[in-house]
């Protein structure tokens, strides 16, 4: 306790000693002062380009263009800023320096977004964001010219969320492109973005997106206030924020959803959820999130409903298998042999005869080996990774069995589990943890242990909430109307209401059935459902 208090005090002290960078200092009318200040702020960075120019001729005003190389679009700067400034201004005379800035903005510069800025700090920030800054001597204001342009990744399909049918585009690292991708999906004035800068040092752009009219305003306010409370040094990925704003930071279950797909995001917004975009990452968080969402794939909505239902059930089964198969095998194999049918028992027994370790140890050991192989396969370059998997899976497994270290059934169970784990990628982490948890419990108490684990997880899940929505809904508490997208994937025309607990402010999506789709509501309903 005391140690904790002491640490807290020290942190507060440190905060006082290192105040944040000088904010809101005014710019000076003197060009050289400004330039020096900027140089001092950014250090002797070679990528800071200072291009001195002279504007006008009669009273020629000296000025300087500043930008950071690599963050700007060279073409824009040359064509739309430098050349009009240098060429178009030769004939101009008698322009007093007071009106010069205004004049330049209105008649000379042909870039889009231009902003006058009298303060120092925003100027530096703008420079770092890829804007070009124009200082004129004698002006205590700078012009911020939107010239952002840098090398960016093309829009391609996210690796983590592959689908067979449907749109193959994913978000990129650029927040502007991402918001644009979303706008392309939802052409509706109700789509609002709210931007803020988070990360004391990285000043990362974070945007909240929601559909006005469908979203519950309280939810937006809650998201806003939780984001405002985030006091963090750096934001590199959506998860940096997720861990701050999640309802249950200690739970292994994700209470903030994430996706890399614009179509999924659009569908979630249309159900009344809020999305959080973070600049610099293709991952978009959506809240509130439910457990069942992890089992839904965009493909479910791109395939016929009967097939989608069928596949979804396989996903449920796979997850249960991935979590429980080793535990059940351990429980049956070392506690409840009477529950195995006799012929199967004899087969398993003959395969495990002479193995030196208890089944739990075998299972945990082989599970660990598998995790190592998987991790190595992910980290290494792709061709090498594949080799690793083959060597790992085949050679190690085969050798372990022939050497009599582990029984062949163990390898089979681990292999099935391993594959089943990947069917529900959203719950990969929880799945692995739960598997270990259940395996150990089964090793100690057999089926009783598994039951204890299940009850514990059930209690935990029922007490979880994600932004006020019970995590297990619509299963617990049961809302039968919402099971249309949980137990089955109902035909799209039959999914006429949004999830009750999330989209209750505007429950109806579309009239039931194939009716004429002239109305606004009907068109909204066409976006496929992701949640």
């Amino acid at each position, binding site marked *: 306790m005391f140690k904790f208090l002491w640490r807290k005090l020290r942190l507060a002290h440190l905060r006082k000693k290192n105040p944040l960078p000088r904010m809101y200092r005014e710019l000076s009318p003197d060009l050289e002062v400004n330039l020096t200040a900027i140089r001092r702020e950014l250090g002797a960075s070679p990528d800071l380009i200072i291009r001195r120019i002279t504007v006008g001729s009669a009273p020629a005003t000296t000025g300087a263009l500043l930008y950071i190389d690599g963050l700007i679009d060279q073409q824009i700067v040359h064509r739309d800023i430098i050349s009009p400034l240098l060429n178009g201004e030769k004939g101009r005379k008698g322009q007093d320096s007071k009106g010069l800035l205004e004049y330049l903005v209105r008649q000379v510069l042909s870039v889009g977004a231009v902003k006058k800025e009298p303060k120092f700090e925003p100027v530096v920030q703008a420079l770092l964001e890829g804007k070009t800054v124009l200082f004129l001597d004698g002006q205590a204001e700078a012009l911020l010219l939107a010239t952002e342009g840098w090398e960016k990744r093309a829009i391609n399909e996210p690796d983590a969320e592959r689908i067979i049918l449907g749109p193959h585009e994913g978000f990129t690292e650029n927040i502007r492109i991402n918001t644009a991708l979303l706008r392309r999906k939802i052409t509706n004035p109700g789509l609002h973005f709210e931007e803020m800068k988070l990360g004391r040092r990285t000043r990362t752009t974070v945007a909240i997106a929601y559909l006005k009219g469908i979203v519950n305003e309280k939810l937006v306010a809650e998201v806003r206030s939780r984001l405002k409370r985030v006091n963090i040094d750096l934001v590199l990925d959506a998860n940096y924020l997720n861990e701050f704003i999640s309802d249950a930071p200690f739970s292994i279950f994700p209470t903030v959803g994430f996706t890399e797909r614009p179509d999924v995001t659009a569908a979630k917004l249309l159900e009344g959820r809020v999305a959080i975009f973070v600049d610099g990452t293709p991952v978009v968080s959506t809240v509130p999130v439910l457990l069942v969402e992890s089992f839904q794939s965009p493909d479910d909505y791109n395939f016929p409903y009967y097939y989608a239902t069928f596949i979804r059930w396989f996903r449920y089964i796979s997850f249960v298998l991935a979590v429980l198969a080793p535990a059940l095998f351990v429980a049956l194999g070392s*506690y*409840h042999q*009477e*529950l*195995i*049918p006799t012929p199967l028992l004899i087969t398993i027994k003959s395969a495990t005869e002479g193995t030196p370790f208890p089944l739990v140890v075998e299972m945990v050991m082989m599970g660990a080996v598998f995790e190592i192989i998987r991790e190595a396969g992910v980290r290494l370059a792709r061709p090498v990774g594949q080799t690793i998997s083959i060597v790992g899976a085949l050679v190690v497994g085969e050798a372990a069995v022939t050497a009599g270290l582990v029984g062949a059934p163990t390898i089979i169970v681990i292999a099935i589990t391993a594959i089943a784990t990947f069917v529900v990628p959203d719950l990969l982490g929880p799945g692995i943890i739960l598997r270990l948890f259940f395996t150990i419990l089964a090793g100690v*108490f*057999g*089926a*009783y*242990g598994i*039951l*204890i684990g299940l*009850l*514990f997880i*059930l*209690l935990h899940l*029922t*007490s979880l909430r994600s932004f006020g929505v*019970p995590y*297990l809904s619509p*299963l*617990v*508490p*049961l809302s039968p109307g919402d099971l249309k997208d949980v137990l089955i994937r109902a035909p799209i025309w039959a999914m006429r209401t949004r999830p009750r607990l999330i989209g209750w402010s505007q429950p109806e999506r579309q009239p039931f059935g194939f009716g004429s789709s002239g109305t606004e509501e009907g068109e909204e309903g066409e976006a496929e459902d992701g949640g």
Partner: protein
Amino acid sequence: MDQGRISAGQLTLLVMSFTIGSWIVLPTGLQSGQNIWLIILFGLGGGMFFACLGLLLYRRFPGKNLFEIHELVFGPVIGKFFSLLYLWFFLQTGGGTLGVFVTMLKSTVFTATPDLALLVPWVIIVIYGCRRGIEVIARSNQPLILATVGLILISILLVLNIFEADNLLPFLDKPFSRIAWDALGVAVFPFGQGVIFMMILPRVNRQQKVAGAVFGGLIGAGLVLMIIQSLAVGVLGKVAEVLVFPTYEFYRIIDIAQVLTRLELIPLLNFLTMGFIKIMLCLYALAFGTAQLFNLRTYRPLAIPIGVLLLVVARRIFPSVSEHMRYFEEVQPYYGLFFCLVLPLITLGTALLRGRARREMAP
């Protein structure tokens, strides 16, 4: 205290789980053999009567739980004494369920494991659930009772080929007094133990639906118990009378094409999950009631020590199953009647006698 709210539907399911509780594998009154369904029916009637009594009392003091009612009716001192009696009753109910639970596990699956090793993890999750409040208990109950009822319905299909309706005959071959006594036993336990819900009724969000929810739950539980015990007797015949756990045993006989066989985990699962809810509710009522007794602001910290007490009680509840059976045969009907008939009647009578003035005083 607990701000959680549950819906009437959740209350129904809670009443069902609580009533099914441990009775599902260790039924009393199986001495009446094939007439078990009749006994459950009569018992259900008795249970409904007790519930009526409780609900009448509750209607007089809406929004108040049993302990608050006691204090309103008898004043703080005698009221607290009455509440203390009920605390003991809850403790014995919870401890008894826990005791049966350990006996069951020890005589079927975990013969070598010491009692404590089985009890401690169980009590830990019960405490965990209890501290999360009634809302979480009610919610986690939903899938459990659904699973139980589902499994029992599936069992009907599973035993179709070995079920002999003849085994439910003859009808009423025992003297009626015997059947009435057994029915009284069933009315008191498990149906009468529902008096514990007097602690939970104020937590329901739509008060006008409370009575329907309680009756619905009792009837549902009665049906489930009737089905499962009739199945057991229909499959086992008179052997059911000599078995300690007839429901468990009849699942062991199921053998469908050598694939669906060795299904004894089903009754164990039903029993454990239902018993889990029952013990959790007992602990909740105990912790909540104790907190109320001492005018505390939160009941949560009490879950741990009372959980420990439950554990101790569970180990000293009965020395053997036969003793337990004898207790249920001879004492429990009177003992239970005291708590689900006599005490509520006294309370109701006093409330009626002291009449208006009291009622107006009650906010």
